[in-house]
């Protein structure tokens, strides 16, 4: 998929664990793992908003378009 999820990078920058982020934004660690691995087919705006709020970043910091 040409959309790359850079959630790992942002988590490392904020020194936050996946488990903590999942707890803050209210999704399961399994779903967060799907999102991190790029297997997710879609992201709800509400989830994106919660991630951006928790990591204090912009959607562009998490999502990236790559022509391939």
């Amino acid at each position, binding site marked *: 998929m040409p959309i790359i999820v850079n959630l790992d990078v942002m988590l490392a920058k904020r020194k936050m664990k996946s488990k903590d982020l999942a707890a803050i934004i209210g999704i399961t660690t399994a779903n967060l793992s799907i999102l991190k691995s790029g*297997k997710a087919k879609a992201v709800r705006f509400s*989830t994106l908003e919660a991630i951006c709020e928790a990591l204090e970043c912009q959607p562009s910091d998490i999502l990236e378009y790559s022509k391939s």
Partner: protein
Amino acid sequence: MLSLNNNYIKMKKLNILKSLVDFIWIFTCIPLILLLLFVSVFVFIDSSITEAVLNVDTSEVANSSASVIITTLVLATVLLIGIYCFYLFRKTLRYFQQRKPFHDYVIATYHKMGNLLVATGIVATVLFFVIKLIFESRFEIHLGLTPYVFIVCLGLFFMVLSEIFKIAKTAKQENDLTI
């Protein structure tokens, strides 16, 4: 609470359907298989017994025992395929009870049932047309709703249902992978 009640009503309908299908399977299909095997064996051993079984018009039937044998075989094959499709349908109901309606097995089975029913309907129509043409020298084409056209329609319905289930499965997968 309302949703739970709705689910209960839906499951109740499914349970009624499953019970009916089980009842038909035990009391109709299994004895029919045995009867078909019995008739098929006697068709080859003594065709006069077949004439007694298919005693519609003995004088007409006695004229061509070959046509009787072929007609019996075609009817027996159609019935056996029908019973097999019913068995497959009964098996898919178990998946519905387990709340797995979009399982790969259900999709594949409905497609298989559709193929079998369409092929059976077409082959039976052509064979009966040929039998009447050769043995009775009658050129007959039925334009109305014959049982074989109904079988073809049923087969196509199952094929369409299989395609719809495939689309539904994709939609469900996408929904499950939406975070």
